[in-house]
């Protein structure tokens, strides 16, 4: 067994030192009825090359995004990750390190987290950020709970433009809560969320670009919320948009939650991803998740530690701000390295290139008979209405090797009004040839 360092000799020697007759003697506390009472119907251990062959066969049954034209977005985006990023995160001292609870021998992870927090604060325009959460959707639920703690009010209003899966996660976290108001999805980018704000409102949750790709007016939302003592929670599923769009912090956001996958992290069929959360300085003691802070060591040298842990479960147990125990450390590292490589110059260029390719896509789609682009505004994603049911159309395009986007019905099943809608994204990896292939195939299918 290649991962188990003991030979049978050594096992016998060790049992001798322990004074146990055999290994079962060490399991003597297990009720007889439950110990070795079964035959494990599982395959036996296997050479590496056979395991690899099996996994390659499974992987080979999937259509990878790089295998053809690809326009799928709606909350996860295919971007290029520099080879150096993936190389660095596989380095032993990053990959196989534990949570940095022992700061003297964890300064690498800790300094990185401090840098990461700074990067997230800068791109969102907020004062502070935490060391990451599981993903954008659970982060949104945590933000809602945080807003309740901060305002001591209960009502939460979710914009109809919030990603339906995010909405579902908030609903699960707030199970049966009558103070949760979920507005209807609006493919046209309009929202009546401002009218829902009342004196009992803890927060409104606005996503921009929204689920359909429209850009939302955060300033107006912030002003309306603040006028009634409510908080504005801004949700961003495509973090690259922050290279081109005004920072939510500059527009009045109180809490910003984002899915950070786009920077440094692969699609991975949905996970692991990276939840970003940033807020105002005065709110940090109600922020969930780990925080890294600067301090000095006994010699007076600058160093970093996990801090303000009195908010956390391992100290406060049932009084903690959240039950969260991990962050997305390695995904945060990937994000931080990629962002360090981009810098302001690269991040801005990346966002511009995404937008330019999306404009090219929108222009091309506009020219396809039977296709109606719904968006006036967008960053790198847009919604089209087609003259056929969208889901089977997308399926037919997939058989042609073109992954043409997400039929809205997949995310809002049962809502007939969205059956003819498709959300499509373009990124820096979208080529003219990809767009031409899509247009040609769509034109044929819709003819």
């Amino acid at each position: 067994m290649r991962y188990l360092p003991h030979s049978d000799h050594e096992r016998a020697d060790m049992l001798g030192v322990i004074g146990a007759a055999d290994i079962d003697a060490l399991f003597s506390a297990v009720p007889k009825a439950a110990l070795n009472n079964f035959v494990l119907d599982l395959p036996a251990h296997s050479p590496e090359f056979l395991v690899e062959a099996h996994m390659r066969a499974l992987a080979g049954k999937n259509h990878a995004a790089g295998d053809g034209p690809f326009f799928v977005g709606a909350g996860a985006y295919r971007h290029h990750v520099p080879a150096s990023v993936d190389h660095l995160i596989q380095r032993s001292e990053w990959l196989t390190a534990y949570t940095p609870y022992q700061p003297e021998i964890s300064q690498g992870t800790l300094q990185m987290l401090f840098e990461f927090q700074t990067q997230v604060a800068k791109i969102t325009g907020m004062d502070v950020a935490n060391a990451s959460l599981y993903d954008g959707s659970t982060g949104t639920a945590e933000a809602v709970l945080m807003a309740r703690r901060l305002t001591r009010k209960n009502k939460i209003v979710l914009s109809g433009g919030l990603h339906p899966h995010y909405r579902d996660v908030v609903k699960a976290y707030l199970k049966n809560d009558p103070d949760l108001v979920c507005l209807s999805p609006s493919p046209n980018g309009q929202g009546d969320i401002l009218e829902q704000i009342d004196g009992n409102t803890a927060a409104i949750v606005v996503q921009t670009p929204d689920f359909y790709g429209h850009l939302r007016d955060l300033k107006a939302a912030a002003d309306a919320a603040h006028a009634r003592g409510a908080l504005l929670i801004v949700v961003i599923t495509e973090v690259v948009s922050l290279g081109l769009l005004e920072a939510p912090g500059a527009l009045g956001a109180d809490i910003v939650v984002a899915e950070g996958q786009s920077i440094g992290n692969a699609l991975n069929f949905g996970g692991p991803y990276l939840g970003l959360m940033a807020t105002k300085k005065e709110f940090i003691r109600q922020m969930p998740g780990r925080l890294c802070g600067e301090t000095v060591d006994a010699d007076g040298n600058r160093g970093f530690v996990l801090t303000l842990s009195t908010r956390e479960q391992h100290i406060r147990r049932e009084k903690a701000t959240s039950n969260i125990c991990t962050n997305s450390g390695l995904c945060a590292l990937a994000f931080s390295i990629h962002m360090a490589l981009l810098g302001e110059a690269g991040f801005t260029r990346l966002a511009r290139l995404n937008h330019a390719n999306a404009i090219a896509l929108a222009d091309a789609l506009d020219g396809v008979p039977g296709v109606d682009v719904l968006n006036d505004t967008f960053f790198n994603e847009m919604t089209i209405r087609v003259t056929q049911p969208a889901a089977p159309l997308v399926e037919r395009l997939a058989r042609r090797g073109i992954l043409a986007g997400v039929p809205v019905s997949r995310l809002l099943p049962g809502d007939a009004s969205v059956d003819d809608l498709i959300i499509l994204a373009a990124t820096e990896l979208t080529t003219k040839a990809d767009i031409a292939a899509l247009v040609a195939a769509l034109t044929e299918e819709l003819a």
Partner: protein
Amino acid sequence: PEEPLLFEMGDTEHSGVDLPDVELTRDRLGGFGRKTKLDLAGVTEPEAMRHYVRLSRLNHSIDSGMYPLGSCTMKHNPRLNEKMARLPGFSDIHPLQPVSTVQGALELMNELSHWLMTLTNTAAVALSPKAGAHGELLGMMAIKAAQEAKGEAHRTIVLVPESAHGTNPATAAFLGYSVKPVPARDDGTVDVEAVKAALSPEVAAIMLTNPNTCGLFEPQVIEIARAVHDAGAFFYCDGANFNAIMGVVRPGDLGIDAMHINLHKTFSTPHGGGGPGAGPVVLSEALAPFAPVPFVRRGDASLELVEHIEDQALGRVTAFHGQMGMYVRALTYMLSHGGDGLAQAAQDAVLNANYIKARLQHLFSVPFPDYPTMHEALFDDSFLKGTGVTTLDFAKAMIDEGFHPMTMYFPLVVHGAMLIEPTESESKQTLDRFCDVMAELATDAKAGKSNRFTSAPVKAPRRRLDETRAARQPILRWERPAELPRAAE
């Protein structure tokens, strides 16, 4: 030399990514374009390589030394797992691309589910939780939904033994339950009679860790499960310590209703400096109907992904399908070990912990000597009484010997606890060196050489850090010093 902060190295001009510098002749931003500056430091690729290589060298890691961290299961992370997770057929697929184009992914999820259900003898598994604590949340949500479905929404109490992980009470409280502690016996285990005494029609569930956080297998676990079920409550098992029994004991045979499995603890997905984890939850027949979406189902011709059920009780706990990258790693590990290898690994983990206990018990104090330990050896600080050396001091002295400290002051039920989990990955050679060092430290502490401890560490990249200062005057981000108008100019 000290490694500077990224913001002290880079500036807004430098970039390590080449991209076409597109001019936008028109935009579709509707006036929401950025007007404020990002002020985001960039560095070129050679600078980035150095920065992150040098920073990494300030970390301890499994690959560079032992991590005897009780309750954390820091085991070897095979690199085959990493290689497989990076096959484009796994890493470069989108959670919302047509299900017909991801049949291999669904097959993988199905196969992983089969392994988890077989190893635990349970009826269902919800893969999507992002980490152990997230799995706990899901499991308790399922219990809550099941109680509600039974018309028992009035059950508002969850029993939690005092030795539990902090996540247990936090999770229960998160869902609005009030937490009622169950005391431990003097031998470190939970008394079925104490459980019975605590049970009532208001109790929704018990959350029990088994093997428990003292490293002991709960000998009365089957009786406890029966009592809990008889009282109309559910048995949530914290699976953090499943590594001790996988392939040897099936939790389903013990009567559990829900248990999360930390793929990073038990099935070797890397800890990554604090995540990402993955916390699938196995469920009993009783709770299976309350599993959240999404899950994989075998359809007529192909595998189906169920993403939505009308009026589903629990709904969805994360946006997509969970930690696919971790599923690949975990399944790769399972196939490598096989059923036989997993059982051997559990046995070796237990063997190693008992070996450490056997070699150190004459010098350290053992709070619960009655049972053989499982995968962890638990000591307390009574052997340090009067030495002027605290558990923390002792732990910091281990750093100077090249070891990560053990888990300290946990479980809370033991004063000055020292919880040591070697895992199955450590060789006898390493265990012997570890025991030698621990024995030497204990001897030195008792001999009054307290300076070795109170001043430790001295060989680490940093001496002890001022955590009080960090919390009192939090500095959570870099701010440009007043005298430095822009970075690196």
